[in-house]
């Protein structure tokens, strides 16, 4: 069994247009990987294809989670296998309180492991404290009327409560002001400290969030392919120079 969130030769189309043109990527347990790239390079497509969004069609390749064939499973079973996606644009669910949603989802994720209400409440309270969140959010409806920052923090809370093996953070930094970005970055760090074994794939357009979250490995995606890989210094370089030099390097290499 191959450990890790392992993607091999993945090709993905949306409405017959190929977006991902053969992705190879391995997210290791306990490590933070950054997936960077300009807008439209296919980063979010990868996150939706791995979690099983019906709009995304996998045309070739494999994706496994600690040996489990993700592509053979419906979305909820991929989540049960241990995959979590922090959405760039989380949906709102009017009428469903955060507390009920967390409880329903957690018991759906772990059918054999029902926590009694008091223990579950304790778990949630602890995680909210860890993330510096106010308990008042629990009685609000899921993402209904939430600010951008609140939505992202609720995603972090879910990640904390669900305890996934691998988590994809899709543009968790987008749409946040500096303070909100700092709060979310610190949340991710607190979660890493709390649960070191979770493998992270942090998808980002801007390297800003990586100031708070040092990646172990950086992958750069352009036009549906991983074109460059390196350590944290690669993110620093993109911060300084933007994507154009890398784009030219890649074009030169091809030519």
């Amino acid at each position, binding site marked *: 069994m191959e450990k890790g969130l392992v993607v091999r030769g993945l090709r993905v189309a949306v409405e017959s247009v190929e977006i991902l043109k053969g992705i190879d990527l391995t997210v290791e347990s306990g490590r933070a990987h950054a997936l960077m790239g300009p807008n439209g390079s296919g980063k979010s497509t990868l996150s939706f294809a791995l979690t*099983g969004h019906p709009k995304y069609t996998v045309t070739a390749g494999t994706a496994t989670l600690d040996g489990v064939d993700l592509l053979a499973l419906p*979305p*909820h079973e991929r989540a049960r296998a241990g995959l*979590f996606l922090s959405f760039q644009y989380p949906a709102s669910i009017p*009428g469903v309180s955060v507390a009920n949603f967390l409880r329903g989802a957690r018991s759906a994720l772990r059918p054999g492991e029902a926590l009694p209400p008091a223990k579950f409440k304790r778990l949630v309270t602890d995680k909210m404290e860890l993330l510096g969140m106010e308990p008042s959010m629990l009685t609000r409806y899921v993402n209904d009327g939430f600010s951008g920052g609140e939505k992202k923090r609720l995603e972090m809370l*879910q990640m904390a409560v669900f305890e996934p093996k691998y988590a994809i953070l899709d543009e968790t930094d987008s749409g946040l002001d500096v303070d909100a970005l700092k709060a979310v970055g610190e949340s991710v760090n607190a979660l890493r400290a709390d649960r070191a074994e979770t493998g992270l794939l942090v998808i980002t357009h801007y390297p800003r969030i990586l100031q708070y979250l040092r990646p172990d490995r950086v992958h750069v995606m352009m036009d549906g392919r991983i074109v460059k890989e390196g350590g944290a210094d690669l993110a620093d370089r993109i911060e300084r120079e933007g994507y154009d030099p890398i784009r030219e390097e890649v074009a030169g290499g091809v030519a």
Partner: protein
Amino acid sequence: MASPERGGSAAAQAVERGITREAVDGLTALLAESELDRRARLKAFAIFERLPSPPSRLSRAAKRNLAAVDLARAIPYLDLAQDGEPATVGAHGEEPAESASLVVLVDGRAVTVRLAPEIAASGAYVAPFETALRERPELVRAHSGRLVPDDSDRFTALNAALRRGGLVVHVPAGVTLNEPIELRTVIERASVFPRVLVVAEDGASVQVIERIESRPLQGDAVPARLVCSVGEIVVGRGASVRYAALQHLDEDVAEVSVRRASVGRDATMVLAPVVLGGGIVREDADVVLEGEGSSTRVRGCFFASGEQAFDLAGRVTHAAPHTSADAVFHGAASGAGQASLSGMISIRECAAGSESSLKNRALLLSPKAHIDSVPGLEIANNDVKAYHGATIGEIDEETLFYCQSRGIPRDAARRMIILGFLSPVVDAIASPGARAWLERCIEAKL
């Protein structure tokens, strides 16, 4: 005509069938009413016979309206005296009663009257309608038929003609009742014509929960079943009334109801009509803000599934200055379910400084389901704020996927989203027992 009889067997309860003038006579004799009462009933019956069935507001299922109910096949009442033998309660939810004050009427007969000690202690009065007519005739006659006159339409007239069962609640000035009063109207074989009267005097406060349900009937010789009710709610100066009407009848039962509340100066009224059951249903809920500074919150919901056809209307009338209303209706339809929701805000010329909001939200769960959502405004004063809006849609795919990505299977996610959609109304019901029952009823439809 058999003589009144207590505790007769089911066979002995067989009664002449059909909604007829003779049935009115028979009921009067059964209840040993005065000649005056008999004449009033017969007069109402004549109005019933004269008036046409109200036109359907359903655009696609206009034939599935009250005119389609075969009244000749209905049992107008059971031939048993009032206060018959105890019966088990809870046709759909068999949980023990959770409300401290509970009145249960089965086929129009009171089988349970259990009142919280605070009712007698505070001087409040709660009784089945016929009992109240005997014990507190001045109270009943002062109010009954005032907000909803017998001749309002064909079915209010029918209710007046065959009235039996229902409830009277009187809360004296300044008295707050903490426990909700629950009226459970259960029907088995007979059609029922309950009348509810709630009078909260100045500064009083009370919560009433009405549950209307039926026991499923089996076999070939099944009568047509109708619930035809009238509710009148009088909210005195500075008083507060919360009223929830939760209807979960079997689909062979037709239901027609008119509920009207009159809200006095600085008083508040919360009205929560919930329609889940019944095959052919017409409900009108109407709040009149009569006193300056009065306010209302209306939270209505419905869920039409299978072949159900719901013709529903909600109306708020601002008849005094500085009144405010916040009305929200959420409705869903699945299968071949049909519904029409007419919401209306009417602001009279005298109602300067009033604020009103009406929101209709509809959720379609299948291609054959249909909901007409018709919000309306009539405004006769320029110094007011009024808002109305209607939305109609299907379950959002992205929301479904979001839930699935959290380990929740697609069907369970759908159920969760629909329950959530209807929950603003469920949350407005203060009794946890009734709320839980309602949630189970909704889930049973999913």
